[in-house]
């Protein structure tokens, strides 16, 4: 019997973004799946920064072969213009380049980009500029596990 193991899309997308020259030029390696925190629980990072969150993985059915992932990508500025540019570039590179095979993870078949939303982060005073979007990423497993 073979088990199909769908990819960890949150990790795959964050690694993918850290590997894109246009993204690195704007945020260096600050593409997170969880924002680092200090002992007081406050964000402990330089800005601008990007966070990738997997909201949902929706299998089309059994066998566990085709999965639609909802991935939210947030970009904090700098300035509002910086936040927009970073989010805009992240959405574009995901749309144009993420499809393909990821050894040890899975195969990305395609994406459906979502709208770019201007949602300043109210937890800062004044609110920190932030743009975000949610993309649907269609993928299938590459890793399989054979059992007796």
């Amino acid at each position, binding site marked *: 019997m073979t088990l199909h193991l769908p990819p960890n899309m949150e990790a795959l997308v964050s690694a993918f973004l850290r590997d894109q020259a246009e993204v690195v030029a704007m945020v260096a390696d600050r593409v997170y799946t969880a924002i680092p925190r200090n002992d007081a629980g406050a*964000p402990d990072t330089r800005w601008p920064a990007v966070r990738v969150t997997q*909201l949902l993985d929706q299998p089309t059915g059994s066998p566990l072969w085709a999965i639609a992932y909802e991935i939210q990508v947030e970009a904090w500025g700098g300035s509002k213009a910086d936040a927009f540019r970073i989010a805009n570039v992240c959405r574009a590179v995901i749309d144009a380049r993420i499809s393909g095979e990821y050894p040890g993870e899975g195969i990305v078949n395609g994406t459906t980009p*979502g709208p770019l939303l201007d949602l300043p982060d109210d937890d*800062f005073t004044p609110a920190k500029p932030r743009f975000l979007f949610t993309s649907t990423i269609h993928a299938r497993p590459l890793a399989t596990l054979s059992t007796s």
Partner: protein
Amino acid sequence: MPPAKGFRFEPNEAGIFDAANGDGVKGILNQRATDAQREIRKLSPSRRAFFDYRKNVKVAKARRVGRTYEAAVFVDSPGWHLVEYGTAYREPTAPIRRGMKLARLDFRENE
């Protein structure tokens, strides 16, 4: 199986037969909205006092809009965006978007 009382099909502008009128349609819409409400509540913040989120996941029963009916589910809490999209201090848990998907409803932002 006969359709529910008051339930009938009629062709839309494209000539496709579609549910349009009757208590049956309202019942379906109300049921789908209630399904979404249940899923959103399951995913809502565990702390009950969080901006009164859980008790403010509400359903607006089906009502006539033009030639058809519309029902709605909405979150009438001022803190909805904090959990929906997150902040640098808080991970997004997206109860509305995930709840709608889990209720098998199409949901698109900005529409």
